[in-house]
């Protein structure tokens, strides 16, 4: 699709305008899944396994069923016979996953039985009365242990704890390593963190026996969700209706409660009662299957004296926990930006996904890109330290230059556009880098540990899911479309219809702004609604920072069809050619003859009720749909494993200043600037909000958040006492500096930004801390960087051998 207009010439796009969603959220009028109250609705609570690995010897539900107010106790035996296993993305059919364990439990917290009762409190009382006899079996928690011979197998039928292993070589890697002057190895470890929205996952379901249809309301953010729910429940797709007009209280990737939904859907149909499950925090953290990447990187880099990077070898071992849906694909997205924003001609990549007896992993903001960016950025800093080179200089030397776009990387993706040097310079200017260096050095002279961290990272966005066929050749998905309907009613009011839920990304603002831009009508007056899954056009949900590109492109396409129709109506009635109609603010006139004009209201009236004034061949009524395919998508991987996965590449440059109290080892983030280029911003407030939140999220991953396990397989950070989210006290003032390099591939030059901030913050903070530790020759490459870890490094430096 061609550019709509030049980037500066927009009327509504890029303007600071009130978002459509704020009024209802700020005034407490959102409608979340916990607000869904169906008549006679029953409530679910779950019996969870206390063991990381065990055989279920027996389950006695008699006492629980006898409790007044209890309607049913469902166990895996019945459930697994009546439903099909949940979809798995990689080629591992024997790694069967159901909502309830059947005969075997594979992680502590796995659901063993579900109780349905009049209230959630009664259901929890009944949970305590379910007697389960277990026979514990050997478990494995450490992913490196899990891949060794003789390790307990999480799924013996699969034959191995490796659920995915690939080896890719793009470009002359061996030659580059053989010829390079320097080589360096590095192990970087990304801790098991996630996104933890305030709202846990929730789902309500109701079976209509008369219509034979299952209605579902859920706090969902998941591609193919209605389809997967129907398949698992052995229902035709048109017997499941997902209501997308439910506000989702944050997701950032993890709100994929397919196992919750199949369970609740089954119960609602089985019992003939509306049933709801709202996870409590304990269920969410331990059994909600929402942990994020847990990844060990072994990096090797070949480089020259002057810091020029020649080749990169990346081995990534990801612990996906006890089951997998799409989570191993999080090793696939980084293929699309495998060399980061740098000119690296040869890359070897060996991703391995490992099963362990831990809570399963789910998609998290960036879909594996944030850990990969962290490993690449740590590698850059290690090269710089090795060469005694400035970390900014090594980046400037290796960053792709503005005149090199579109830029083809070895793994087959072409970066659409960018000006990485300009964004980095803007960030450095905003923080006054020379003054910052002086401040750091003065702090060091005063005895403090002080460091500056730089990270320059990519945000691939708008993807076509091309990592699926790359990682699983049995999959041949090549489309990942999104769509929009625009209609103008008889009163002339405009409505945009989208077919998915939102979890805070502001899609109503996006759609109304885009439609308003194209039709030249006030976006504040445009309503945006969400069709249910049986009425909606195809959508792949807001994942992969894709909606500005995909839903924005679809809304623009549909609005343009409406505009074209209005112009045709005008030409027909003004008896002129289409080309000579001038469309302005919704009114149409003959170019050069402003008196020969048909206003908006009259155009609408003709379209709706005056077929005698309609041009032949044009449908009456004003409604248009547009389905948009991912730009550059549509291809399967080539024989050499190259593929274009994501079309657009936003860029972020972080500059962080940290001080560490040498005596207490407590780190404090003193200054934070993020330079950001996501092309044309449709709503700057939304982009800035997402970036700010992404940085806060990255601070969590860098310093605080970890789903930590004991050696005996118990999650020891299952509450907010121990899983530490950064609060307002831990997030410093953040300055975001905008830059705009329009994408040549999208409607308005926009790129995605939903994962902004998070994709670079952990890398920048880790680099800042390591800069602070450099004077004492300390280094930490494991996230999160805790006080205790810092103390060990500082102590080691202070008294070697202690």
């Amino acid at each position: 699709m061609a550019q709509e207009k030049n980037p500066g010439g927009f009327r509504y796009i890029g303007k600071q305008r009130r978002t459509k969603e704020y009024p209802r959220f700020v005034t407490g009028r959102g409608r979340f899944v916990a607000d869904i109250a169906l008549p006679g609705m029953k409530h679910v609570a779950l019996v969870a396994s206390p063991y990381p690995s065990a055989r279920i010897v027996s389950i006695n539900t008699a006492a629980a069923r006898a409790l007044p107010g209890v309607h049913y106790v469902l166990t895996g035996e019945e459930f697994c016979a009546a439903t099909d296993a949940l979809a798995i993305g990689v080629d591992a059919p024997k790694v069967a996953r159901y909502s309830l364990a059947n005969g075997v439990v594979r992680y502590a917290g796995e659901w063993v039985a579900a109780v349905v009762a009049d209230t959630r409190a009664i259901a929890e009382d009944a949970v305590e009365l379910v007697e389960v006899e277990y026979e514990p079996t050997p478990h494995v928690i450490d992913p490196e242990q899990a891949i060794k011979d003789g390790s307990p197998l999480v799924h013996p039928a699969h034959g191995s704890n490796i659920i995915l292993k690939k080896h890719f070589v793009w470009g002359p890697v061996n030659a580059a390593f053989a010829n390079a002057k320097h080589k360096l190895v590095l192990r970087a470890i990304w801790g098991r963190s996630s996104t933890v929205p305030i709202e846990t996952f929730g789902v309500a379901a109701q079976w209509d026996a008369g219509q034979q249809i299952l209605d579902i309301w859920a706090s969902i953010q998941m591609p193919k969700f209605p389809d997967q729910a129907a398949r698992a429940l052995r229902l035709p797709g048109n017997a499941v209706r997902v209501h997308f007009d439910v506000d989702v209280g944050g997701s950032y990737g993890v709100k994929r409660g397919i196992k919750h939904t199949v369970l609740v859907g089954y119960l609602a149909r089985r019992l003939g009662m509306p049933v709801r499950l709202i996870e409590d925090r304990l269920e969410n953290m331990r059994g909600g299957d929402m942990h994020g990447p847990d990844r060990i990187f072994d990096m090797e880099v070949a480089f020259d004296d002057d810091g020029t990077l020649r080749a990169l070898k990346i081995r990534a071992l990801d612990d996906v926990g006890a089951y997998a849906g799409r989570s191993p694909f999080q090793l696939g997205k980084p293929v699309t930006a495998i060399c980061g924003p740098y000119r690296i001609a040869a890359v070897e990549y060996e991703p391995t996904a490992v099963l362990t007896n831990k809570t399963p992993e789910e998609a998290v903001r960036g879909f594996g890109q944030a850990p990969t960016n962290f490993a690449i950025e740590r590698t850059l800093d290690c090269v710089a330290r090795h060469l005694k080179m400035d970390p900014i200089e090594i980046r400037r030397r290796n960053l792709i230059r503005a005149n090199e776009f579109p830029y083809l990387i070895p793994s087959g993706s072409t970066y659409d556009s960018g000006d990485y040097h300009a964004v980095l310079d803007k960030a450095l200017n905003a923080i006054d880098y020379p003054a910052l260096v002086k401040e750091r050095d003065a702090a060091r002279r005063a005895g403090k540990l002080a460091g500056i961290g730089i990270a320059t990272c990519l945000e691939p966005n708008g993807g076509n899911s091309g990592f699926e066929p790359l990682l699983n050749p049995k999959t041949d998905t090549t489309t990942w479309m999104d769509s929009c309907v625009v209609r103008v009613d008889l009163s002339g009011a405009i409505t945009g219809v989208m077919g998915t839920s939102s979890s805070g990304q502001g899609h109503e603002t996006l759609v109304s702004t885009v439609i308003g831009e194209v039709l030249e009508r006030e976006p504040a007056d445009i309503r945006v609604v969400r069709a249910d899954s049986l009425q909606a056009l195809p959508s792949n949900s807001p994942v992969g920072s894709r909606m500005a590109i995909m839903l924005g492109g679809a809304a623009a396409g549909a609005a343009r069809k409406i505009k074209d129709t209005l112009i045709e109506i005008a030409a027909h009635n003004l008896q002129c050619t289409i080309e000579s109609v001038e469309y302005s603010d919704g009114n149409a006139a003959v170019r050069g003859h402003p008196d020969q004009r048909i206003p908006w209201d009259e155009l609408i009236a003709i379209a709706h009720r005056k077929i005698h004034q309609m041009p032949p061949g044009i449908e009456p009524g004003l409604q248009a749909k547009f389905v948009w395919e991912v730009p550059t998508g549509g291809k399967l991987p080539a024989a050499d494993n190259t593929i274009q996965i994501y079309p657009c590449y936003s860029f972020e440059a972080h500059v962080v200043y940290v001080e560490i109290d040498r005596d207490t080892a407590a780190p404090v983030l003193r200054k934070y600037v993020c330079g950001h280029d996501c092309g044309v911003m449709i709503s700057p407030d939304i982009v800035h909000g997402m970036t700010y939140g992404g940085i806060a999220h990255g601070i969590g991953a860098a310093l605080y958040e970890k789903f930590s396990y004991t050696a005996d397989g118990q999650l020891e950070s299952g509450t907010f006492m121990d899983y530490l989210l950064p609060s307002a006290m831990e997030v410093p003032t953040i300055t975001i500096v905008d830059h705009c390099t329009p994408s040549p591939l999208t409607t308005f030059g926009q790129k995605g930004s939903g994962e902004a901030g998070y994709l670079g913050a952990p890398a920048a903070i880790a680099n800042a801390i390591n800069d602070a530790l450099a004077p004492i020759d300390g280094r930490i490459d494991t996230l999160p960087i805790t006080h205790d870890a810092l103390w060990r490094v500082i102590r080691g430096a202070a008294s070697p051998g202690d």
Partner: protein
Amino acid sequence: MKAASFDYVRAASITEACELLRQDGGDVKLIAGGQSLTPMMAMRLTRPSRLVDINEIDALKFIKLDNNTARIGACTRQCVVAADNALAARVPLLRRALAWVGHTQTRNRGTLGGSLAHADPAAELPLVAQVLDARLQIRSTSGTRTLPASEFFIGPLTTALEAHECLEEIYWPVWTEHRTGCAFTEVSRRHGDFAIIEACAQIAVDADGRCMRASFGLGGGGTIPLAFPALAATLIGTQLDDAVLKGVTQDAAAELDPGGDLHASAGYRKHLAAVLATRVLRAAYDEAYGKA
């Protein structure tokens, strides 16, 4: 996270509260601000058969000041304690410590007596009670008794309160020396969390900067927060030079027996104990000596 079933009674007076406690025996809990109790009940870590709500008992909410003592009713909200300027002039450590207790929202609800009776080993107010040698007046149907803080705290979440007893009020000694300073600090991974290690001190000095009176303590390093009166006594007459300070704080840290957990190893806690004890003693001394 729904509490197990329980009865709820709102007591109109302390007499009624004590009577309800006596009737019920061991399985009843008083609820004041509920900032610790309700999450523990929701997670079913504790499951009292009955809650006696003392929030409406006005007689438990007061701050009374005289020359030597500040008396505070057990059900006085933490935010009220922190906001009282006359109290802060006499017992400044309370306000200093409260800045570290949870967040504004929890302090609006949480009470002074609730925090003391809950006795988390890393909580701030129990440490202040130990360091200032507060006395705690306890009421039951058979009368009242008063315990010094050193006898009140017994172990993690365990105090000398019997099941039928109610904490009624707390006496805080007022240091009348003109040149008195105090300090409170702690390290936690995030602000508002329970401390990895916390420390506080109060010191009075003469016009030459010689220490006349000193008290300090550490929390988070064992089963209860501890004051170190014997070590503090060795500071009397000194000007807290570095060598003296180092000896005292290292001895104090050595008396701790911290555990290791997810957030901090025992070694780190011991290290922090000496560091933070030094900092609060130095800060309290500087504040005291800085007064004209």
